[in-house]
């Protein structure tokens, strides 16, 4: 009975767990390992040229091995990245998160991405999509209030003729763009209401890309969250 081989599924799970632990440990030691090798090079440099060159070789080998480990294991081992760039099949239908601010007359305004700075808009919408629904309701509402305040502060800035974001504070038009280029909805005071926004709404906008190619209005807005709650 004892020497009976365990079912394959248990072996696989055990392997995955051990493998997962190994990968986790690699992720933990990747940066300290790099620091150790940097320290080794700096110490060797003070001692002798041959030692320095050996230490440099060690540093190079580590950089190559760690980069390849992150790449081939397909896992980030910070600071070594797996470079998972654009690696996705685009599904049909698809959706995007859309944030709208609502004024006292119940008119809805698409909010300019610069309003959320210092948060980057692509990161914020991803967080709203995945994390907002699973945090406690009180936390959701504090976030909702924060978003509403941000929208109103930016609205006042725009009306006063000041920049609405903070990213371009040093470089102006030469500011490095974000990974995804969002449309600048708020360009002049005519793009926002004269009175404050009263509500913030987060939608999931669904559309079938093939149908929308024929009819641009072929999409559906599902309300995911609103503040204050109605």
């Amino acid at each position, binding site marked *: 009975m004892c020497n009976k081989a365990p079912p394959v599924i248990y072996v696989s799970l055990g392997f995955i767990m051990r493998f997962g632990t190994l990968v986790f440990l690699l992720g933990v030691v990747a940066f300290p390992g790099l620091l150790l090798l940097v320290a080794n*090079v700096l110490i060797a440099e003070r001692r002798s040229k041959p030692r320095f060159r050996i230490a440099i070789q060690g540093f190079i080998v580590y950089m190559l091995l760690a980069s390849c480990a992150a790449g081939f294991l397909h896992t980030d081992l910070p600071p070594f990245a797996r470079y998972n760039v654009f690696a996705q099949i685009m599904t049909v239908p698809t959706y995007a998160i859309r944030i709208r601010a609502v004024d006292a007359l119940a008119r809805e305004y*698409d909010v300019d991405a610069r309003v959320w700075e*210092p948060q980057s808009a692509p990161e914020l919408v991803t967080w709203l999509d995945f994390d907002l629904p699973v945090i406690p309701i009180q936390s959701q509402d504090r976030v909702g209030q924060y978003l509403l305040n941000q929208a109103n502060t930016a609205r006042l800035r725009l009306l006063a003729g000041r920049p609405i974001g903070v990213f371009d*504070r040093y470089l102006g038009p030469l500011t490095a763009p974000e990974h995804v280029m969002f449309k600048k909805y708020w360009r002049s005071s005519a793009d926002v209401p004269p009175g404050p926004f009263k509500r913030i709404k987060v939608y999931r906008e669904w559309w079938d890309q093939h149908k929308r190619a024929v009819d641009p209005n072929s999409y559906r807005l599902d309300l995911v969250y609103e503040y204050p709650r109605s």
Partner: protein
Amino acid sequence: MTRGLLSSWQRRWNGFWFAPGSPYNLAVARIAVAGTALWIFLSRDFSGVSALPRDFWLRTSLFTEWRYLLFPGHPVLEGALQDLTIVALACAVLGILPRTCCLLSGLLLYHFGPAESIIWASTATLRGFEIPQLALIALALSPCGDALSVWPGGKGRKKSAEDSWSYQWPVRLIQAQLCFLYFFSAYSKLVECGVRWASPENMRNWLLTLTQNDQIQGFTLLGPWLLRHPLFYVPFGVVALLLEFSFPVTLFSRRAAAILIPAAVFMHIVILLAMNIVVLYPPIFLVFADWGFVGRVLKSAAQDNENALDLGERTIHASPG
């Protein structure tokens, strides 16, 4: 035979990493890497993320916070570190104590790198600092201030010709990191999606999605044009995969580099104009060029200047009265 094989391998290894290099190549690498990081850094507000309501951080694990020493609720401290990073990067660009500044800014970029996405991602990469942080740390271990620097610092030890190996390896390492970026980007696509990623259908769906989403609208002409001319976008997936997989060849062949690097830049321009997706590291491609000529030009200018001064002095001495 094994010994012969080993020594041949060692020769190749040394030839690749430690061949005599130009201090100007290393200096341009320092300026390109630190300059790119500085450009991104001046275009963000990482310390502001620390000031966000704590509710945003609820799903960020303690492990992730400790891994990067990045915690919510310390905007003043983060602001000071942000200013320090900007100063260190600017000094690295100008060549003011470049080795110290490269090391400091490399470590600080590790800290700030995930600041934008830490609220939802446990490991935050692809925000523009992956290559700069590793490159700056490598540059800190090399004589990167020997050319094009305002105040190199150190003991001012003169480099002999036999030391010129130390100019080569950091440049090679940065080139290798760029190659990893492309190669593993292609590898990830195959791991995550298989060959279907490169299918014309997937390319079309991506194009449709990014051109129809009216929130993403920096450039609006090329995307719809491509959709009307499938001949141009159908091979895009296969071409992109081939380009990315073959990018490491640039390390070994100048001819390949002369083709693949402009091709990669062209690919990024098309992606930007058609899909509004931006990558910020192309300035680092400057590490593939040979900048030794800058040294030669500067030397010959200095020589000309010296000759002119010499001639002037001789004329003064020769003139009567």
